[in-house]
């Protein structure tokens, strides 16, 4: 279970609403459904962290 990746979606929804979730999916190329099933690998965490940072910077 990828709890950390799912947390990134919750965080994006909290900060940017539904649009944030969609943008996060677009930037990471992993939907929330898929994020729940893939590993919390360091690589995946790094991708989500970068995507969230990009959302925060308005990109």
């Amino acid at each position, binding site marked *: 279970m990828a709890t950390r990746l799912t947390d990134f979606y919750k965080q994006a929804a909290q900060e940017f609403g539904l649009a944030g*979730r969609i943008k996060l*999916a677009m930037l990471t190329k992993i939907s929330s459904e898929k994020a729940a099933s893939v590993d919390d690998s360091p690589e995946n965490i790094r991708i989500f962290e970068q995507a969230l940072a990009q959302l925060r910077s308005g990109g």
Partner: protein
Amino acid sequence: MEGCLQMKISSKLMLFFCGVVALFVLLAVALLAQTRSVSAGYDALLRQQVRQAQAARVVQVSFKKQVQEWKDILLRGHTPADLAKYSGQFHDEESQVRHGATVLAAAVEDPAGRELLNQFLAAHRTIGEKYQAAYEAYVGNHFDFKLADSMVRGQDRAPTDLFDQVVRRLNDDVTASVAAQQRAVQHARNLALALSGGLLFGLGLAGFVTVSNILGRLGRLKAVSDRLARADIEGLSVDISGPDEIGQFGNSMQGVHAAIEELTRLASDAGHA
């Protein structure tokens, strides 16, 4: 090969174009070198063997003219003016034969041909002395042509046969050199054909593999795009990657696919709420 597959399409096309240009430059240089080589070969042939064969024919004709002049001396030499005229012409032809044969003997590289020429020169000197003795007998015996003729009759046969052998040998040499030159040209032509054919085949194969790879991945990308356009995302997988333009496009499509999946899920969640 691996590095080539990792290249962008624009780089692959540029590499292919450069390959085609390089191939044609290489072929042009090879053809130029081959033409020069053939030209040099024929120049050498003309400078040496053909020129020697021509010079030999000139000496051969001069010797026949010398013998003819001797017959004119015997036939018309009873007149002082004719005697002086034909004697002069006889000695001119004799000098030309000697000079021509000497020059030829120095130039001919074939040892057997040179030996024949030396034999001819010796025989020509001997017959020259006999002609001189016969001439003196002819003039000293009130132009007795029968006496003079009996002294040299048939003596020109041996040198004539010797020189005929020289001419035949030089002509055979020219024929052999032309045949060798033709063989060299044929070999060079076959080599150029094999080389250019091999290079063209290699370039064509590389082009075919590159185009097939690009078209195959474009086809997969179009299939993904068509399914996205139809909103048919159930079980859709965008597995097109790579460092080139198609890979980058596939990567973007993965983002779009994930966004549509997310949107669909949100819509579904909203519907259930």
